[in-house]
């Protein structure tokens, strides 16, 4: 089995921990140096941030950013070879898997907010998006109040399902909330009329609509559940050395023109697997964030930029 060598190597690496290094490495950097591998968590259907192409390989905007971070880590640790392991995550498994050490970086569409920062850390923001819902035009649902008494789906573990739950309680909507395992499953529920609406970040909704069989049948609500919130790549908390390397890599990426180039590659050009073009020009807030990278969880911070 291909996993035995990996487990053996990990155990051996741990037992060799006694070997001294020139500089004291701690935390994730230490782990990476000893095992010679870094594990990236990827999403399966968060187009265009992190998703599987036709060959079941993860690609996307966040994946590219992560690979740049991996290059920076490799340089920092002066390694000749750094093995990149890939581990699929969903909205509900990403935080526990980060906390228990299964992944070192989560490259996807994770919203950076203050509550999550109690459990994990984020690096510089790579996108800003608000929470909305998609529904079929035929359902004629325009505002959140129109969802009263209906069946609405969202992805478990996301900030969106939490916002939906809170709005449901606050506005007394008696919505029947279904929790789907991942975005693909949730959108399919709207497609097959199992749910009338899917609540998710609007950029992901546009991608799903664009990739669906009948893009014209769907509409994204104007009313949002939240202000535009930042996406960040996740890493473990209380690991300042690693955070420094990651922050440095992402800041360098955004501040030089490369960040903009990567953005255009995924949002303004045709992307795999169906050759869609999302045609979503960079928002002014995100542009100014690229110029002054930050990992702030506060949506108002970006508005003021």
């Amino acid at each position, binding site marked *: *089995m291909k*996993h035995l060598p*990996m*487990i053996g190597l*990990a*155990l051996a690496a*741990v*037992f060799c*921990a006694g070997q001294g290094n020139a500089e004291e490495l701690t*935390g*994730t950097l*230490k*782990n990476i140096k000893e*095992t010679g591998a870094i*594990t990236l968590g990827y999403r*399966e*259907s968060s187009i265009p941030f992190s998703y*599987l192409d036709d060959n*079941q390989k993860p690609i996307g905007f966040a994946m590219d950013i992560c690979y740049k971070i991996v290059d920076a880590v490799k340089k920092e640790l002066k390694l000749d070879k750094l093995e990149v392991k890939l*581990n*699929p995550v*969903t909205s509900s*498994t990403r935080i*526990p*898997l980060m*906390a*228990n*050490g*299964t992944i070192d970086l989560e490259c996807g569409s994770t919203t950076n907010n203050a509550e999550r920062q109690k459990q994990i850390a984020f690096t510089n923001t790579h996108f800003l998006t608000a929470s909305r819902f998609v529904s079929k035009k035929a359902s004629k649902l325009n505002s959140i109040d129109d969802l009263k008494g209906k069946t609405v789906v969202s992805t478990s573990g996301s900030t969106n399902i939490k916002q939906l739950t809170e709005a449901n309680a606050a506005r007394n909507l008696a919505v029947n909330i279904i929790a789907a*395992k*991942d975005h*693909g*499953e949730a959108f*399919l529920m709207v*497609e*097959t009329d199992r749910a009338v609406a899917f609540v998710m970040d609007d950029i992901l909704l546009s991608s799903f609509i664009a990739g669906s*069989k009948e893009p014209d049948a769907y509409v994204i609500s104007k009313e949002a559940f939240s202000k535009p919130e930042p996406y960040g790549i996740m890493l473990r908390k209380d690991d300042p050395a690693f955070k420094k390397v990651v922050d440095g890599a992402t800041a360098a990426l955004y501040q030089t023109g490369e960040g903009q180039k990567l953005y255009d590659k995924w949002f303004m050009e045709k992307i795999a697997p169906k050759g869609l073009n999302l045609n979503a020009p960079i928002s002014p807030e995100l542009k100014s964030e690229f110029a002054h990278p930050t990992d702030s969880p506060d949506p108002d911070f970006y508005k003021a930029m």
Partner: protein
Amino acid sequence: MFANFDFDVIRRSLAYLFFDGMTFTLTLTGLSALGGLIFGTLIALMRLSGFKLFGRIAGLYVDLMRSLPLVMVIFWFYFLVPYIGQWLTGSSRPIHVGAFASSLITFVIFEAAYFSEIMRAGIQSISRGQPAAAQALGLTYSQTMRYVVLPQAFRNMLPVLLTQTIVLFQDTSLVYVLSIPDFLGAASKVAQRDGRLVEMYLFAAVVYFAISCIASFGVRRLQSRIAFVH
């Protein structure tokens, strides 16, 4: 009724389904059955040993595993194993454990409880004359177990053990809850990506049915050939 179904999606994804999905499922089944059997036999021996403490611990373990739903145990181990690894190896961080390793550990520990009950019944069904004769011949406890009791118990319970393995094969589909790519997981990934739920789930149902049917038929043939020798 079946007008707008595209069964070609099955043919297009066969390689992925079988090379990735089915190999995962079968490897997990095989290794878990083996591990579960070995661990289960140890637990059964602990329960049947003279030492009250061993018996108690083994009994508690079996009762705990048999009261919990497998889905719950899968969740527990997926999130817990790295911490246990950290504690066991004394490292400073939780140990990285992949999906396969985590599932394997889960199923070995869960199924061991069931295998232990089967082996316990098997060991108890051996007539008392056997270990007595072994003792008369001067064999130690472990020699008795290894050469006299366990081989007979195993042979007697083989059909039940194989049936439990078929149940284990079906249970591996539950790793779906963690999006782990076993056969059913692979089928549903294709289903969701291409919007072909009906075709893929029907295909998955047929495959599971065929494999389980053939396997249980095989076990029934085996059962009629193994006579109980007392």
